[in-house]
């Protein structure tokens, strides 16, 4: 069960114009840097990207925005990106903003084969407009649908040849959820090891959810808000 591919360009080779992609990461933390670079090289266009954020001007999904490869972003927060703002205001780019927990849980639902979930987030706000509201034990919930994405592209810390993945610290975030949710899931890892080297109790994403895996190179792991305390 060897799911290893040579690198990012091979891994994303069949992603075509108009595809819907999930991209893991929170801010610039835990983003699939190698695959984003390959998507920019491939110049695939008209993409719908489901990702919590949209990168910054010169990093992350911002690199794809700069090349105008993205038709629509589905995110919870899209600040910190001037080119994004320009495209949005000019109408070149569509944005669907959804609550962060809803975003996460719609991924979970897809990975668990559940067509819809109920969440109170957004009840009584514009997020709830047009959505079914249902009351359970006195509290209102919105019905939100599982995502349906052609590809999920995630970044893990370690992975094995069978596609089992382990994430590190808060770089976990949306990655395991999206890994479960894609029709085709592509994982890039900092360290690729032979099957059997990861502790079976400590794996976050079982390989059954992962279709392609490769060891990434040259991770920049840029810090968005470097914040330190004085001694």
């Amino acid at each position, binding site marked *: 069960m060897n799911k290893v591919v040579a690198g990012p360009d091979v891994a994303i080779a069949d992603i075509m114009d108009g595809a819907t992609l999930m991209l893991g990461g929170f801010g610039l933390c835990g983003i699939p840097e190698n695959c984003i670079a390959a998507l920019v090289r491939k110049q695939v266009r008209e993409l719908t990207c489901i990702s919590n954020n949209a990168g910054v001007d010169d990093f992350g999904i911002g690199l794809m925005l700069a090349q105008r490869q993205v038709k629509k972003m589905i995110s919870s927060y899209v600040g910190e990106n001037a080119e994004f703002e320009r495209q949005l205001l000019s109408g070149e780019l569509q944005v669907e903003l959804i*609550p962060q927990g809803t975003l996460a*849980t719609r991924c979970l639902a897809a990975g668990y084969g559940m067509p819809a979930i109920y*969440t109170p987030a957004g009840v009584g706000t514009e997020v709830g407009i047009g959505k079914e509201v249902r009351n359970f034990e006195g509290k209102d919930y919105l019905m939100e649908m599982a995502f349906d994405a052609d590809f999920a592209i995630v970044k893990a810390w370690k992975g094995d040849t069978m596609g089992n993945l382990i994430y590190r610290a808060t770089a976990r975030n949306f990655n395991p959820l999206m890994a479960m949710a894609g029709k085709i899931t592509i994982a890039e890892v900092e360290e690729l090891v032979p099957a059997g080297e990861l502790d079976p109790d400590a794996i976050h994403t079982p390989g059954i959810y992962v279709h392609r895996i490769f060891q990434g190179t040259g991770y920049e792991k840029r810090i968005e808000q470097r914040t330190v305390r004085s001694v």
Partner: protein
Amino acid sequence: MALTKEQIAQRIARELQQGYYVNLGIGIPTLVANYIPSGMDVVLQSENGLLGMGPFPLAGQEDADLINAGKQTITTVKGSVFFDSALSFGMIRAGKVNLTVLGAMEVSDCGDIANWKIPGKMVKGMGGAMDLVASARNIIVAMMHTNPKGESKLLPACTLPLTGVRCVKKVVTDLAVLDITPQGFRLLERAPGVSIDEIRAKTAGRLVVEGEIPELRFD
């Protein structure tokens, strides 16, 4: 004298209790972490997937894989645990987080909150705010009593798009501490030297003032 941001945070910290799990939003709420009473066990949750958030790192010890919900580099404390975003909002939705503190642009006298969108301005998104306000058991808002134009942010009804409805329990501003009650904002405490009349003048929503209203004291 109006409270400083630090004093607002300090006052909110008095709401903490032994064993609390707490989610602190960006801005003034973050400062609450600096005033946790010593000896009190409080665990900070960061909704991007961490329980047991510690202080910012020392220079040179930043870890790109370890950030908070404001994307700032942070550290962890002993007994911390990492998890994915679905479990993070799962524990929030299930009411396991005891207290949520967040900022706001407007709060209504029935506890509605608006803090994510200003029509006509670039909208950056609600992040996790809608999930937090819809689910948290106990929500305290930390904000200035008025906006830069001097207009009240404590309103009979929010004018901005809502983040959540009937969810805020308490508001701590630079001028006052107020509970949300069925009768509206109930004044509990006032900033040192700030009169009830001033608070009344700067509170557009229903305000209940009953009995003695003590001044806040900071030792």
